[in-house]
């Protein structure tokens, strides 16, 4: 082993292949940031809308939810929210769960978030498209 490799503690094979890290962690990291940026206006719009509808009855609330702009923003919110949640919960599980349940927990979070976003979007579409 030449002195340079001794110094950076990498094997000649690792240096030749040029990997070292998994080279894909930055994808999740970046997706977490992009979804966070999307959620800033979407969640503020949602909070403001809920406040504005504080005194609304069912009919008023549904008539607000039925407008195309509300439906579009609500669907975008659901997608960004559950994407961001899945990424965040996965990081928490990977950091704190050290047993074999880690893999199962990550899969459960991913499948659960996918199912919930689908159910949420279908609910919004039912409200918007119903006569």
């Amino acid at each position, binding site marked *: 082993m030449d002195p340079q490799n001794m110094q950076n503690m990498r094997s000649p094979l690792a240096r030749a292949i040029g990997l070292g890290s998994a080279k894909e962690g930055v994808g999740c990291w970046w997706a977490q940031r992009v979804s966070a940026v999307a959620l800033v206006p979407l969640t503020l719009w949602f909070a403001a809308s809920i406040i504005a*509808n504080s005194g609304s009855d*069912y009919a008023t609330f549904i008539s607000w939810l039925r407008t195309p702009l509300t439906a579009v923003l609500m669907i975008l919110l659901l997608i960004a929210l559950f994407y961001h*949640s899945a990424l965040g919960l996965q990081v*928490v599980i990977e950091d*704190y769960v050290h047993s074999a349940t880690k893999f199962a927990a990550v899969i459960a979070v991913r499948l659960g978030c996918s199912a919930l976003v689908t159910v949420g979007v279908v*609910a919004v579409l039912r409200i918007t498209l119903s006569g």
Partner: protein
Amino acid sequence: MSNPTTTRPRPLSPNIQIYRPQLTSVLSILNRITGILLSACAVVLVVWLVAAARGPQTYAPVQAAISSWIGRIALFGATFAFFLHLCGGIRHLAWDTVHGFELRSIYISGWAVVAASVVLTVVAWIASASMGG
């Protein structure tokens, strides 16, 4: 003497209890805790939307649960968790642009997150009450 490192298990995260709590570490772990809480709130959001889609008969009990005292206390906590995670998240996004890493800046932004979260939560609930909630 045998190797002492093999007799004692290595510490695994979360091992935050070995440190004295500071604003920096408390806000860091709160960002995670609020994130988990808000994921649970996202499930409630879906339940609420499904109830609304099914009609007034299904929507009424869900709305009654949210309007109850326990529901309101939970919603107040969720509001604070939301603003804490939002402000903390914006602080993280600022850090991602390689700004504000000086110790003084970190404490200023940390206390700003706490203050903004408290103010925004109170403003949101006053606004909601004024709208008849």
